[in-house]
């Protein structure tokens, strides 16, 4: 690759030249970094590689996942692989899906200034402030649904002037919603009872002992439930 094609970036203030159109993660590796922290799934779902960056001609702080964000010339970047965040313990069997339970554990959500900085810091573009406000109102369903795509990267936490740990509120709401507010699957419950009563023991045992020849015949004869 010719030199003129290389792009100048600054990793924690230090200049490196890397080929264009790399992700931040691959640019860091190309520059000689071997990740221990700050690298996980490399596919945008694990939240390990939260990164903040700025450009010399703008006051703005930008955020992104290193594995998903492409480098741009003159990017000044650093990763935030860990950010301290408190988490309240609870017993999922005895907790109730009530706003009091959330406030008891995370009273600081009442300090939310509605500044929306959390949303601006979210690499998933989630309505972070909205779900915190929903949790504060006791609208656990809305908080659960709005936070569903949270990858727990912690960028919201790092930017919040009210020192809220948004993602822990989000996962509490999702578990409360899924466990207590959505009806249990009836057919699942029935099937579990049948299995525990041994209803399928014979059927499964028959297949376990069946010859490959018989299995192949049955396999090719299966009827397929319509899509």
């Amino acid at each position, binding site marked *: 690759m010719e030199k003129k094609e290389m792009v100048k970036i600054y990793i924690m203030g230090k200049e490196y030249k890397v080929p264009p159109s790399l*992700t931040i993660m691959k640019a860091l590796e*190309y520059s000689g970094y071997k990740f221990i922290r700050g690298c996980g799934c490399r596919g945008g779902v694990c939240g390990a590689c939260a990164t903040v960056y700025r450009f010399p001609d703008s006051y703005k702080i930008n955020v992104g996942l290193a594995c998903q964000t492409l480098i741009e010339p003159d990017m000044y970047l650093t990763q935030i692989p860990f950010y301290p965040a408190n988490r309240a313990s609870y017993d999922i069997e005895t907790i109730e899906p009530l706003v009091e339970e959330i406030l008891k554990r995370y009273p600081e959500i009442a300090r939310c200034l509605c500044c929306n900085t959390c949303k601006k810091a979210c690499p998933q573009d989630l309505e972070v402030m909205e779900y915190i406000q929903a949790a504060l109102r006791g609208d656990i369903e809305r908080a659960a649904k709005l936070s569903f795509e949270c990858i727990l990267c912690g960028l919201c936490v790092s930017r919040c002037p009210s020192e809220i740990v948004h993602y822990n509120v989000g996962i509490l709401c999702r578990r409360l919603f899924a466990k207590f507010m959505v009806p249990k699957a009836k057919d699942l419950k029935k099937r579990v009872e049948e299995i525990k009563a041994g209803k399928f023991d014979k059927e499964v045992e028959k297949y376990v002992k069946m010859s490959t020849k018989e*299995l*192949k015949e049955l*396999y090719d004869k*299966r009827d397929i439930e319509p899509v």
Partner: protein
Amino acid sequence: MSYPNYMLDLIKKVEATRPKRIAQVKKGENFASLSAEKGGELLRKFHPDYKEGTKRKLQLGKSKGSLVPNEVADIIEANPCIDLKNVNLEKIDYDVDVLVIGGGGAGSCAALVAQEQGAKVLIATKLRHGDANTIMAEGGIQAADKNQDSPGLHFLDTMGGGHFSNDPELLGVLVKEAPLAIEWLENLGVMFDKDNEGTMSTLHGGGTSRKRMHSAGDMTGAEIMRTLRDEIKNRPDIEVVEFAPAVELIVDDKGQCAGAALYNLETKQYSVVKAKTTVIATGGFGRLHIQGFPTTNHYGATADGLVLAYRVGCSLTFMDASQFHPTGVIYPEQNVGLLITEKVRGAGAQLANIDGEQFVYPLEPRDIESSAIIRECLERKKGVKTPTDRIGVWLDSVMIEILKGEGAIQRDFPAKYRQFMRHGIDISKQPMLVFPTLHYQNGGVKINADAGTEVPNLYVAGEASGGIHGRNRLMGNSLLDITVFGRRAGQEAAIKAKQAKIGKLSLEHVGKYRTNLQNSGIKTDRISPMLLPDYVGKIG
């Protein structure tokens, strides 16, 4: 950045055939699926597993003589990386009932169930707790819990998908405990896709005869993983040590597994775990890049557990069978190798060649689907070339919008939609370009139905184990496997721990392994476990 102009022109051919293909789907007409025999022929001709010169026989150990990919042989036939003079077995840093190595899905399930049995549990994990392939699993988890379905049909589908090579006993456990696993997750507060009455939304996956794929959007694994991790944080009897991979198992003078030596990746110090029982749940080998393939796998998927288990005397099974997921991204270049969940095809998307024509039933088992794509690109020359000379076929996601209504992509595949929009491609309006990508280690350490191994007090669960899926795993059976066998391993390890008596700790097998290597005529400076892949100075 979006598609370059020449690709936009080719997309017009996909658009031209789409109305016809949509009409066929609506009439219930499918591209014919292959019989077991025809599928087998296709595999032998085009599946990477059958490519010559990519494997070799192991020269030492319990599975000496068995064929494994060269990349696996390279880490098995390698010197232990542990620096014995810095490991002090006299000083026990952690003394626990159950040691779980690996903080992914299987390990977390094992830890929770072991703790419920009253065990004191330590999870030692290489990266963060939850950094694992589990978090990347998108499409779903299988269980035969609907009226029209049964564990027997689940067994038959899975056996067929594995070309009748699966260990029937392990598979029997998997299908029978599947609904129990789903109920357990439901009770932990996993936000499954459900209708208003609470009935689980279920879809087909490749090779299923009934719709039994349960999901949580297209982040099913992430939702399961973050819930398991959250629950573990609620339980003080489970300690988690991060960035501390096990680099060698410890045995005792009776030949039982007795814990492990951990290596702090940041401080470079070793610590010693004494454990009555040990569960290996370290995942698979995607980051070994078998045959140079890109991978969907997590950064830490370097098959460390295989190496550890092998050195203390476990057998490996089905290690010559690698799973290539049919639909890995090949454009844009930054996303090469990333997974496009099979749920996309389950929801109605079809594959199409450069002429916009369908060439395979969209829901064949993965190895057959992959082989058909490879044939289309390499033999029939009907693939589409990217600007960086990768070749692939179209995955016509737009069909989902037409079949399920506008907005279906954003609703059902939010993570995928976002991932492509970052690069200016709207997958609700344009197809994706895909080619098979290294996805899953079908084989692994040989286990019994209790997740036990040939070494006393050592258990293996999840992708690190082999046999359940035979030569080819079906979609949705891995999240299931990690839950069912993770739980089993935790249960059995905790019960065993109650009566296990551990003798004098030893790492003598490490020296023996070195000698064994030399005696086998293997001269190498390779060291393992690998721990982390090396992309430094490269474009990984």
